[in-house]
């Protein structure tokens, strides 16, 4: 049997590789996405002071440490049985929405944007942020850098540092904002809102206005009928920071809705011997293998899943865009590439929330912490990370020493769906005697780029695509090699 190796795929929580096996007819028989690394946070957080676990776990991922820190501090609230002050919650939300704007901007423009704005078959040298800038203008490129920097500055004002922020305490936060900082944050929020409007317009003009791209998005090759998961507020509107976890079935009907503390009743993790990353599934349906549909426990998280799991967005402009999204694509959307549109709708909600929060008089209050802490015990904290639902679960002894820690991170939820998406894209694109062109490989890559914005953030920016495909004959000899060389 012939093998196609896509190796490496790079991502943030570690490395990855894809193996595609061809059958004797030259058609794709199966595909595997392997994660070749393990850190073991679930073990080595044992024995640590439990409040420190919220500072240790951000080191799981240096691209979304804000998400881990936020999940960690919410878990500490639960461990110490304390409700944060209203101001603390607003400051946390401001930090988190600023992070969402920065992260989603990075993904859309630097990672995914090149595929749509420049084109999936465009020469590699152009299919990067520089190509995007050439197409949409230098001003936009500058805006992307500015948005990132400004939103990261809000994170820094609230949590000291851009990478591995440090402000989380049970019951609140360690730092507030003074008048000068609020004025600055207000301006950044207003800029972010304008940028979100611009980005959505750009998507309409460049992507939805292009029939070929629209066909690509809607192609069966990039679709899976799965369950979808996301946090929602009490009106079933998307919420990145708090709420209940809602799961809808492939037809869009509510399948489950549960508070963080009940996650174990709903989520199981399956182990395969060929990857260090586990495969979550819905426990009440069970692990049925890498198959889609209502009878399989496989579900998805991240922007498309959150949109599907919500009845509405929580802010007016985002909600108006959601209506357009649903008018165009339907109520429950299975097209993986529609994730990019969903991400922009979320970008809008995050920017609108920034404006709302920075104009809230309470944001300048110094009521930063509820110090009425209970005896430490067990707690679960869930937030929506840009890449999916993020679950932290700490069990502390009464002295505040972590006894057990469990973590299910965003990309992990999507592990099985990513494998399935790669297989389907490969099946649709790679055929007997067919040429494995660079554009073909990129279209395989697009299937997982939609899930994992971490992928190749540096590579795309400087014009490399780390996708290497080798075709082996059944005896193991190399019969063809397709590759994308660095520029």
């Amino acid at each position, binding site marked *: *049997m012939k093998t196609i190796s896509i*190796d*490496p795929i*790079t991502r943030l*929580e570690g*490395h990855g*590789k894809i193996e595609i096996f061809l059958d004797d007819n030259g058609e794709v*028989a199966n595909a*595997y996405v392997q994660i*070749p*690394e*393990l*850190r*073991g946070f679930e*073990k*080595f*957080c044992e*024995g*640590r*002071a439990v409040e*420190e676990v919220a500072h*240790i776990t951000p*080191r799981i*991922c*240096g*691209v979304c*440490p804000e998400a881990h820190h936020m999940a960690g501090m919410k878990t500490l609230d639960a461990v*110490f049985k304390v409700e944060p002050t209203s101001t603390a919650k607003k400051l946390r939300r401001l930090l988190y929405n600023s992070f969402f704007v920065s992260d989603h901007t990075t993904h859309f423009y630097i990672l995914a944007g090149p595929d749509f704005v420049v084109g999936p078959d465009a020469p590699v040298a152009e299919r990067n942020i520089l190509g995007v800038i050439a197409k949409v203008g230098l001003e936009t490129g500058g805006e992307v*850098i500015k948005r990132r*920097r400004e939103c*990261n500055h809000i994170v820094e004002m609230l*949590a*000291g540092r851009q*990478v*591995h922020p*440090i402000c989380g305490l*049970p019951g609140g936060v360690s*730092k507030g904002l003074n008048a000068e900082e609020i004025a600055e944050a207000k301006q950044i929020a207003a800029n972010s809102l304008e940028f979100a409007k611009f980005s959505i317009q750009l998507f309409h003009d460049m992507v939805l206005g292009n029939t070929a791209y629209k066909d690509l998005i809607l192609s069966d090759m990039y679709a899976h009928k799965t369950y979808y998961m996301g946090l929602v507020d009490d009106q079933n509107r998307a919420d990145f920071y708090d709420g209940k976890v809602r799961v809808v079935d492939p037809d869009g009907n509510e399948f489950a809705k549960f508070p963080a503390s009940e996650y*174990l009743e709903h*989520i*199981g*993790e399956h*182990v*395969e*011997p060929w990857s*260090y990353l*586990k495969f*979550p599934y819905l*426990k009440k349906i069970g*692990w049925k293998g890498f198959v889609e549909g209502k009878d399989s426990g496989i579900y998805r998280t991240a922007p498309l899943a959150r949109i599907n799991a919500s009845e509405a967005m929580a802010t007016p402009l985002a909600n108006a865009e959601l209506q357009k999204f649903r008018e165009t694509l339907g109520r429950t959307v299975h097209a993986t590439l529609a994730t990019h549109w969903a991400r922009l709708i979320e970008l809008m909600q995050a920017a609108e929330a920034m404006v709302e929060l920075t104009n809230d008089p309470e944001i300048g209050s110094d009521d930063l912490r509820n*110090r009425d802490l209970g005896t430490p015990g067990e707690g679960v904290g869930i937030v929506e990370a840009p890449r999916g639902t993020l679950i932290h*679960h700490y069990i502390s002894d009464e002295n*505040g*020493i972590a006894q057990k820690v469990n973590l299910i991170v965003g990309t992990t939820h999507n592990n099985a769906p990513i494998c399935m998406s790669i297989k389907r894209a490969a099946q649709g694109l790679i055929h007997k005697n067919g040429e494995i062109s660079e554009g073909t490989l990129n279209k395989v890559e697009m299937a997982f780029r939609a899930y994992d914005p971490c992928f190749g953030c*540096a*590579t795309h920016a*400087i014009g490399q695509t780390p996708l290497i495909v*080798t075709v082996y004959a059944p005896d193991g000899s190399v019969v063809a090699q397709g*590759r994308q060389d*660095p520029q």
Partner: protein
Amino acid sequence: MAKPKVAFYWAASCGGCEIAVLEIHEKLLDVAAQVEIVFWPVAIDAKYKDVEAMEDKSIDVTFFNGAIRSSENEHIAKLLRQKSKIMIAFGSCASEGCIPGLANFYTKDALMDRVFKETPSTTNEEGILPGPETQVAEGKLTLPVLWDHVWPLEDVVDVDYFIPGCSPAPVTVAKAFETILSGNLPPKGSVLGASEVALCEECPRERHDKKVKKFYRPHEIVDDGKTCLMEQGIICAGLATRGGCGHLCINANMPCRGCYGPPPRVKDQGAALLAAIASAVDSNDEEEIKQIMSEIPDIAGLCWRFSLAKCSLVNKPVAAAAQ
């Protein structure tokens, strides 16, 4: 003169060091214009071949972030060392093991069992553990081998310079790049981009040489926002940590945990912090000192938070290469 050839690689780390490079914003464009990037980011299989095909010492500078946890990490570290004139341990993981190094508190088997068998969300009745080789219906799949320990880079290859931090602050990254591009290089083994003093000396908080009768955990006390955290009884690693980060954690009213490694002339950061804590105790009575110290939770995990993999008190095998 030809532009210096530069490589970036990450091993066992979180990706934060890669982001740290981006966080110097416009300065990155200046740096990028002055160098030729021959390898960034990491590659695993075929791009190994690219590097393998390079002549020895043909890369001028390799910035290596991440600790050594697996056969793959070690292999690439050695390959890049062979191909590079200057090898830089970039960030805390490569320099001293950092947070991934906390895994050295446990055996690899304990880690694997916890993750794949014991966590409450995992269903694994057959007790499957991922391994180096798996035969699937269509063929064979392979994974790198996880070593039993986490190693700093210098335990596996010769390292020329160190850039500290988890992750290095933008100011450190910018300064380190500047030093390297100037061609005016300090002696081998130097730390680049940081200060030659302890963080305490750069801390803006007031100090009164006050000692304490009790230590508090950050959530047990309200910091006054201006006095030395240690003098308020909140353990802060500033005295046992190299400066140069811009006291970012203290800016957020949180204590330093030591990610910049030991200050100059200190070998074991954890031991230095332990000594600093002991000397902050307001007592001359040995029993009382013991009592106060014993109330500090997880003192090993606190003092060696970022440097356990380098801790001189821990007995570990000589080198990963031996495996």
